C-alpha cells in the first residue's frame, strides 16, 4: 500500500475530469460522485497513516527533466508530517464534500462545483506528498488555481470576480518569493530535493547571508499563501466563495500550506536566526493585527476569516520560536475547529440567508444542532480548558516563553484574549438575545450538513489529547522521531485560561449591553474598522504606480517606437521616390550613373586595398 500511495491524490483528480466532462449527465448526483472519490482517497490515506506509525519514511522518485548535469525528479515522500497532512486534508475534504451536498442543494452548476473541489483536493494532497521543492511549487500553484476557481464560483457577481483575481495575484506575489528562494537553492546545491538541500545546509555549504535571504524568500511564499501581513488582503475577500469552500480551502487546508512549507523546510530556518526571528515577528504581529480587525467586523464569514489569519499567525509565531511540534499541533487542531466553525456558520447562513450578524440573534432555540456545535468550535478556539485548542495554544505559548522574547509573548497573550472575545461576541450575537429582525421559517439544516459538523466537533474536543502534558506526547514523538519529555508549566496554563476567561467575560458584558462594537466615533475605531487602510494603501501605491508605468510606456510606444517605425518607412519611401526619378529613360543619365559608380568602387578599392576588412 505504501508504495502505491501516489494513487491517493489521483482519485480526486479522476473525479475532477469525470465531473468536468460528464457533469451534465450526473446532475445533482455529482455530489455523490465527488464524495465517493474523496472517500476512497481518505481510506487509502488512513491505511497509509496506520502503516507509517511504525515505519520510517518512504520515498520514491523518477526522472522528470534533465538540466545540464542535474537530474530533476518527481515522486512522492511519506514522512510523519506528510502523512499527517495527507490524512487531515483527505478527511476534512471528504466531510466538506458531504456537507456541500446539503449546502449547495439546488445549485445549477453543482457538477462544476464538485469538479473544482476535486481539483483542489488533488492538488493539496499532491502538495503534501512532494519530495522536492519544484514539485511542491507546482502543486502550490495548482491549489491556488483551485482556490481562485472556487472564490470566483459565482462568476456573475462583480465582487466574486474581483476577489478571485485579487487572491490569484496576491498569492502569486508571494509565490515569486518561493520561486526565487527555490532557484537560488538549486544553484547552490544542484538539486531541489529536500534531503540534498538539508545536507548542504548542515555541511555549511551555503553562506550564512545567502541562506538567510533564501529562507526569507521561501517564507514570503508562505506569507502569501497563508494570508499573513502584508500579503493578507486577499483572504477576507476570498469569503465571496461558497461557505464550504471557505471551510476547506480558506481555513483548514490551503492557507495552512504556508505553515506546512516552513515546517517542511525547517532545517533551512533553523540554520538562520534572523530568518526565524522574521517568521516569529511576522506571525506574532499578524496574529494580533488580524484579531483586532475581527473584533469590529459584522460579517460572520469575515470575522472567521480574520480569525483564521490570526490563528495562522500563531502557528508562524510557534515556528519562529523553535516550536515545530507546537505549530504542527495547532495546525491540526485549528483545521478541525475552524472547519467546524465555518460549516456551522454556513448552516446559519443557510437558515437565515444573511451574513450580517447585526441582523441575527436568538437563533439558539431555532437551530438545535448548529447552536451547540458552533459553541463547541467557539470554546475550542478560545482556548477553554480540556478542548483541543487549549492544548495546542498552550504549547505555542510555552514555546514562545521558552524562547525568551517577552515582546512576542505579550503579543501572543493579547491575541488569546482578543480571540476569546471576538469569538464569543460572534457567538452571542448570532445565538443569544432576541431575534432582531423577524426571520420566518428558520429551519435547521438537513442531516447531510450536521453530520459532518458532529464529526468535526468530536475531533475539536478530542484531538488535543494526542499531545498533552498528562497523557503523553504522541504527536511530538512521532513527528520528531524521538521521545521528548514535555515540560509541564501549571502557571502558563492558568494564565492562558484566565486570559481566555477575561475575553469571554468582556464579550458577555457587552452582549448584555447589546453592543456589537459596530459604531464608534474615535479615529482608532475607524482605522481598525477600515482594516488599517491596507487595501487603500496598496490601491494608492502599487496599483497606481503600475498603471502609471503602463501609461507612460503607452506614450513611449506611440511616439518613440512607432515614431521610429514611421521614420524608417518614410526613409524607405524617399529612396523609392528618388530611385523612381532615375528611371528617366535617358541613356546618357544611365551611363553617367554607371560611370560614377565605377569610379566610387575604384576609389574604395584603392583606399581600402581590396575589400573592407
Amino acid at each position, binding site marked *: 500500500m505504501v508504495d502505491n500511495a501516489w494513487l491517493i491524490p489521483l482519485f480526486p483528480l479522476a473525479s475532477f475530469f469525470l465531473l468536468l466532462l460528464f457533469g451534465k449527465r450526473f446532475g445533482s448526483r455529482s455530489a455523490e460522485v465527488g464524495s465517493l472519490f474523496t472517500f476512497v482517497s481518505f481510506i487509502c490515506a488512513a491505511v497509509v497513516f496506520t502503516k507509517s506509525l511504525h515505519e520510517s519514511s518512504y520515498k520514491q522518485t523518477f*526522472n*522528470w*527533466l*534533465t*538540466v*545540464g548535469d542535474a537530474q530533476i525528479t518527481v515522486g512522492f515522500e511519506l514522512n510523519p508530517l506528510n502523512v499527517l497532512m495527507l490524512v487531515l486534508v483527505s478527511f476534512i475534504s471528504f466531510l466538506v464534500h458531504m456537507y456541500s451536498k446539503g449546502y449547495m442543494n439546488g445549485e445549477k452548476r453543482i457538477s462544476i462545483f464538485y469538479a473544482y473541489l476535486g481539483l483542489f483536493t488533488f492538488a493539496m494532497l499532491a502538495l503534501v506528498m512532494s519530495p522536492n521543492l*519544484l514539485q511542491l*511549487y*507546482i*502543486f502550490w*500553484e*495548482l491549489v491556488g*488555481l483551485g482556490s481562485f476557481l472556487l472564490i*470566483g464560483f459565482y*462568476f*456573475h457577481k*462583480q465582487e*466574486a*470576480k474581483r476577489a*478571485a*483575481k485579487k487572491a*490569484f*495575484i496576491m498569492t*502569486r*506575489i508571494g509565490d*515569486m518569493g518561493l*520561486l*526565487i528562494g527555490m*532557484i*537560488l537553492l*538549486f*544553484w547552490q546545491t544542484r538539486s531541489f530535493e529536500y534531503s540534498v538541500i538539508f545536507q548542504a545546509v548542515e555541511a555549511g555549504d551555503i553562506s550564512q547571508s545567502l541562506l538567510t535571504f533564501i529562507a526569507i524568500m521561501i517564507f514570503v511564499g508562505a506569507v502569501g499563501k497563508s494570508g499573513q501581513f502584508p500579503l493578507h488582503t486577499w483572504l477576507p475577500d476570498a469569503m465571496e466563495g461558497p461557505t464550504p469552500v471557505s471551510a476547506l480551502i480558506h481555513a483548514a487546508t490551503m492557507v495552512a500550506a504556508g505553515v506546512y512549507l516552513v515546517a517542511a523546510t525547517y532545517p533551512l530556518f533553523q540554520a538562520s536566526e534572523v530568518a526565524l526571528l522574521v517568521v516569529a515577528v511576522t506571525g506574532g504581529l499578524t496574529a494580533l493585527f488580524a484579531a483586532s480587525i475581527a473584533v469590529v467586523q459584522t460579517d460572520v464569514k469575515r470575522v472567521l476569516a480574520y480569525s483564521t489569519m490570526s490563528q495562522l499567525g500563531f502557528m508562524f509565531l510557534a515556528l519562529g520560536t523553535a516550536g515545530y511540534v507546537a505549530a504542527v499541533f495547532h495546525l491540526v487542531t485549528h483545521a478541525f475547529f475552524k472547519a467546524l466553525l465555518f460549516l456551522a456558520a454556513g448552516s446559519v447562513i443557510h437558515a437565515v440567508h444573511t451574513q450580517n450578524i447585526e441582523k441575527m440573534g436568538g437563533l439558539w432555540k431555532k437551530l438545535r444542532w448548529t447552536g451547540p456545535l458552533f459553541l463547541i468550535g467557539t470554546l475550542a478556539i478560545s482556548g477553554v480548558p480540556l478542548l483541543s485548542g487549549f492544548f495546542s495554544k498552550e504549547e505555542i505559548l510555552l514555546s514562545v516563553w521558552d524562547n525568551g522574547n517577552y515582546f512576542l509573548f505579550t503579543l501572543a497573550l493579547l491575541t488569546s484574549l482578543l480571540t476569546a472575545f471576538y469569538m464569543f461576541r460572534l457567538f452571542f450575537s448570532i445565538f443569544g438575545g432576541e431575534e432582531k429582525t423577524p426571520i420566518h421559517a428558520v429551519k435547521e439544516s438537513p442531516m447531510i450538513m450536521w453530520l459532518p459538523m458532529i464529526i468535526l466537533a468530536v475531533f475539536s474536543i478530542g484531538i488535543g489529547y494526542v499531545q498533552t502534558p498528562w497523557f503523553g506526547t504522541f504527536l511530538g514523538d512521532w513527528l520528531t522521531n524521538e521521545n521528548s519529555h514535555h515540560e509541564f508549566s501549571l502557571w502558563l496554563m492558568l494564565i492562558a485560561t484566565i486570559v481566555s476567561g477575561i475575553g469571554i467575560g468582556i464579550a458577555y458584558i457587552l452582549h448584555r449591553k447589546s453592543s456589537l462594537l459596530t459604531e464608534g466615533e474615535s479615529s482608532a475605531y475607524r482605522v481598525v474598522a477600515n482594516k488599517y487602510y491596507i487595501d487603500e494603501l496598496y490601491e494608492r501605491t502599487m496599483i497606481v504606480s*503600475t*498603471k502609471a*508605468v*503602463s*501609461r507612460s*510606456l*503607452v506614450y513611449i*510606444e506611440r511616439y*518613440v*517606437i*512607432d515614431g*521610429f*517605425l514611421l521614420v*524608417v*518607412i518614410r526613409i*524607405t519611401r524617399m529612396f523609392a521616390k528618388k530611385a523612381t526619378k532615375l528611371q528617366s529613360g535617358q541613356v546618357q543619365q544611365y551611363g553617367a550613373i554607371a560611370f560614377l559608380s565605377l569610379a566610387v568602387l575604384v576609389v574604395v578599392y584603392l583606399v581600402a586595398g*581590396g*575589400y*573592407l*576588412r
Partner: protein
Amino acid sequence: MNDYLLPLLVFSPVIGMIMIWLMPKTEEKTLKQFGWIGTLMPLLISLFLYQQWLTGVSLSSYQIKWNWIQFGNLAMYDDTLYTIDFELSLDGFSLVFILLTTVLSMLAALASFYIKTEWKGYFLLFLLLEIGMLGVFMADNLLLFFLFFEVTFVSLFFLIGRWGYVNKEKAAYHFLVYNGIGSVLLLFVIATLFVRVGTTNIDALTHILNVGDVALLAPISPFLTDMLCILLFIAFAIKLPVFPFHSWMVRVHREAAPPVVMLHAGVLLKIGAYGMIRFGLGIFPEQVEKLALLFMIVGVISFLYGAFLALVQTDLKLVWAYSSVSHMGIVFFGFGTLNDAGLQGAVFQAVSHGAIAALLFFLIALLYERTGTTELNELGGLAEHLPIFSGVLLTAGLAALGLPGMSGFISEFMAFLGLFKEQMLLAIIAVIGLILTAAYTLRAVLKITFGKKTYSMTWRDVQGIEYVPIAILFMVIVAIGVYPMWLGQLVQEDITTWLLRIGG
C-alpha cells in the same frame, strides 16, 4: 526512400496546391477541404519522422545534397568552393519546429474555414507559406534558408494584406518594410560570408570560422566578424521580435485574419529564435558570448515592456499581441544565458508559445465569429451563455500565464533558472514580469467571461469541428507541462553540442 523524404516533406503541400488550382474559385466548400487536406501530407511525413526518431533511427541519415549552383570553375582548388548545393538536413532541434509547423498548419487550415472571400487564392498562399516554413527549418545552407525565408515573407504579405480586419493593408505594409530591412541585413551577411569563405553550408562555415585551420580566400577581420554577427542578430531580433523592433508584429496581430496570426505567432516568429540559435550560436559562438549580457538585458526589457503594455490594452487581440512580445523576451534572455537551463528554456518557450498563441488566436476567431468584436469593454459575462468557450479561454489564459502542469510554466521556469545562474539581480527584477503576466491575463479573461452579461441568445457555444484545434493544442500544452522530458530529449543533444562550442 531516405534520399527523398526531406524534399518530399518540404514540397508535399504542392499536392494540395495543385488540387486547389484545378478547382473553380467559386467552390467554397471543396476549396476549404482541399486546403485542409493539403496540410495533412506534411503532417503525416513529419509524424513518421518523429516515430522513426523514437525507434532510434539517426535523423542525419535523411540528409540530402544535390548539386545546384556553381560559381566559376575552381575545382582545381576545392570541389566545393563557391558552389551552392540544394541540401536539406534534419536534427532534433529542427524536427521540433517542423512538428510545430505541420501541426499548427493543419489546425490553422481548419480555422481558415471562417475565411469569407477568395478561398482559392487564400489556400494557395497558405500552402505556399507552409512550404516556406518547412524549408526554413530544414535548409542546410544559408542561401537556401534565405530563399525559403523569402517565400514565407511574400506569401505572408499577401495573406495579411487581403484577408484581415480594417487596417490590414497598412499592417501588411509595415510588415513588408520592417521585415524587408531584416532580409536585407540577412542577405548582406550571407553574401559577405559566401564571398569571403566560399561556402554557405552551415557546418562548413562553423568549422572554417571557428576551428580556423583552413586558409580563407579573403580573410575576415575580427571587426568585420563582430559586425556580421550584430547584423545577423538585428535581422533575427526584428523577426522574433524583441523590443524595440516589435511594433510591426503588434499591428500584424491586430489586423491579420486569426488563422494567419495562428501561424504567424505560432511558427513564423520562431524563425527568429531558430535562426539565432542555429546560425548565431553556430557560426559566431565567440561573438555571441561577448553579447550575452546585452541579450539578457534586452530580453528582460522586452519581457517587462510587453507585460506592462498588455496590462492597459482594451482590445483582446492587442493584449495577446503584447503578451507575445513579452513571451518572446523570455526566449531572448533564455538564449542569452548561454547555459543548459536557459537554452533549453528558450527552445521550450518557443514551442510552448507556439501552441499557446495559436490557441489564443483560434479563440479570437471563435469569439469574433460570434460577437463581432474583440473589444474588452463590449464584452462581459460570457460564462453564463458560453460556458465551454469561457472555460477554454480561461484555461488557455492560465496556460499563457505559466500555470504549472502546462507548457508555459516549464519553459519560463527553465529560462529563469538559467537567468538566475548568470545574472541574479536582473532575474529578480524580471520576476516582476511574472506577476504582471498573471495580472494582464486575468484582467482580460475575467473581463470577458465573468461579471455583467452582454450576449445575444443566438450565439452558440463551441461545437463540432471547433473542438479539434482546442483538443489537440491542449494535448500538446499539457503533454509538455506534465512530462517535459519528451521534448527535452529531442533537443538535449543539440544543446550540448552548441555549448561545447563556446567552451562552457
